């Protein structure tokens, strides 16, 4: 046991001596959280919008003001012609235009209805569809309240106008994330990414470094069981991973203001299982390769890139081809991110994440067994 702690102590010394790496390990999650939380977001903001209507109309002017005030759009003003809209779009002065049909307001009350066209710059398809969606909902809301108000006024007058009130009004509710904040989606993803990075990449590189420098040769010719050498390597990285986990959670709760809806205990437990699983991956990689560069490439290419692609962090898994959907099932981070989303964002009881916990525990057991079997205590 004394030998084991000597190893653990040595590993901590290595890590603390290498200040820059430590700084990156602690600083990177902070940077990512801030980046994804504030700078990189899928929400739209301050999109330049132009309006066109054949006639002047006070109702439409109020609508334009409302759109301008929403924060999502910035009004560039009224255009005189469709050609001008076209020109503004080309020059990049506007990203989206709202073109009302002739006699729009009066058309609203006619059986034929009124026509409004939304023209967007679809070079970025995600933004374009978001803009259309946001505009449609603002317009619906505006006329919805406007119409019902005018309807009730007229009802008082003649009590004979029921056509507008028969309109279908969908009642939309965004569960778990009513403000549609993208940080709700990214926080579990970043946790999956960073914890995998620290645990698998750093452990495997630090074990392989000993092989590369030749110190493993000396360690092997000692009474210490070589598997203990590897286990001792994991403890410091486990500790660092836990520190980073707390760091991410604190930033998430106090800076991004994403509340933890479910059980804090189970969220930590699921994360610890995931940390152990990642350590197992690192250990397996280190027992298979001989050079740091290969270890880095394997961990980076085979484990980190799929985390981004197939964990549902950036792209929904359900919309992938079936073969890739199957592939996504073997990505450990996918299960972790799903579990964290359920507990942290949805706040469901732990019995709904039993599946995820079991899969991750199974994977961890598998990686550790493979690593121990593959570990050679000779050169």
């Amino acid at each position, binding site marked *: 046991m004394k030998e084991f702690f000597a190893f653990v102590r040595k590993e901590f010394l*290595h890590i603390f001596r290498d200040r820059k790496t430590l700084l990156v390990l602690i600083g990177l999650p902070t940077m990512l959280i801030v980046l994804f939380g504030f700078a990189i977001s899928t929400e739209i903001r301050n999109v330049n919008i132009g309006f066109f209507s054949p006639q002047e109309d006070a109702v439409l002017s109020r609508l334009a003001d409302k759109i301008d005030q929403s924060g999502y759009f910035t009004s560039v003003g009224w255009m005189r012609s469709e050609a001008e809209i076209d020109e503004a779009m080309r020059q990049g002065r506007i990203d989206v235009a709202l073109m009302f049909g002739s006699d729009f307001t009066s058309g609203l009350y006619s059986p034929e209805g009124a026509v409004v066209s939304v023209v967007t710059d679809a070079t970025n398809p995600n933004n374009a569809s978001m803009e259309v969606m946001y505009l449609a909902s603002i317009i619906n809301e505006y006329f919805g309240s406007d119409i019902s108000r005018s309807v009730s006024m007229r009802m008082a007058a003649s009590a004979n106008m029921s056509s507008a009130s028969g309109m279908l009004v969908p009642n939309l509710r965004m569960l778990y994330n009513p403000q549609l904040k993208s940080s709700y989606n990214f926080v579990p993803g970043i946790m999956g990414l960073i914890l995998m990075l620290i645990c698998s990449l750093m452990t495997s590189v630090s074990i392989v470094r000993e092989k590369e420098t030749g110190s493993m040769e*000396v360690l092997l*010719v000692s009474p210490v069981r070589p598997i203990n050498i590897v286990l001792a390597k994991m403890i410091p990285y486990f500790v660092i991973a836990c520190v980073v986990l707390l760091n991410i959670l604190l930033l998430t709760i106090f800076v991004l203001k994403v509340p933890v809806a479910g059980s804090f205990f189970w969220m930590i437990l699921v994360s610890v299982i995931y940390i152990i699983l990642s350590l197992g991956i690192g250990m397996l990689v280190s027992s298979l390769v001989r050079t740091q560069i290969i270890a880095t490439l394997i961990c980076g290419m085979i484990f980190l890139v799929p985390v981004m692609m197939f964990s549902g962090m950036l792209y929904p898994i359900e919309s992938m081809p079936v073969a890739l959907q199957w592939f996504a099932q073997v990505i450990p981070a996918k299960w972790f991110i799903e579990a964290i989303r359920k507990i942290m964002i949805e706040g469901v009881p732990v019995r709904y994440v039993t599946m995820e916990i079991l899969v991750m525990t199974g994977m961890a057991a598998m990686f550790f067994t493979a690593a121990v079997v593959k570990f050679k205590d000779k050169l």
Partner: protein
Amino acid sequence: MDAIVIRGLRKSFRKDQPPAVCLQGETVIRKGELFGIIGPDGAGKTTLFRMLATLLDPDEGSATLEGLDVVRDYRKIRTILGYMPGKFSLYSDLSVKENLEFFASVFGKDIDSNYDLIENIYCRLRPFEKRKAGKLSGGMKQKLALCCSLIHSPSILFLDEPTTGVDPSSRRELWENLAQLKAAGMTVVVSTAYMDEADRCDRVAMMKSGRFLTVDSPGNIMKRFGKRLLAVRSDNMFSLLKDLRSLDAVEKCYTFGDTHHVTLKDGTEADAAMIASELESVYGHKGVKVYDVPATLEDCYMNLEEE
């Protein structure tokens, strides 16, 4: 008492290449012996060490250390063995003291329990205790590595090319340290590519292409050198080598420091004066000097190669 017994070890890494190590017969290293393995780079010294240090399994043959088989009992061997690889393999980001403490605790010991064993070596490192191992000079690194491989008081010590890249005075100190360890009863096996260091060993094995050419004390090896050996020099050393090789009486000619060494064929009448006059008259060399020299280990090695 035999500390190490090697019975025909063989190891090859690739099928299409000759084996890295291919020892025939039995080689015995006695307890408390300072044994040298001498050979040029690529002779198979490191591979042999790794097999004896239980890091590589031999393809054929077997070896025992203190009666323990290197394949079967490798765990037990690892408790009695001190091994210092050729490459500096301590932790360069840890200080001198931290390295030593770490290696002591790996063997379940502390520095004090075996301090007397390393005292002579460590006293030179003591002023640099707080310095990072990576910032030490080459000789200091080797001293630290030696301390680390001695701290658990092994009964057998393997040193793979400990003097490579070390200045002459540090080399001399190292050999003095090894002599002290031997005097303390430790079996020490050292490999080196420097022939002049072999004199310090009780016995040496001359190694070439994975085989032991001969195993004997340096004195006996030199005594058995049965040929006449001449040292030759002239103003034009380069063409001299070629010309010497074309002489009838000359068996073998090779450069040795600033002279060429020449062995003469058995039964030839030629001597130093005859060769000198032939070089001057037939080949037109100027400033020719030819004289008899006693054989060194290097001469023995050069002439053993052929057999």
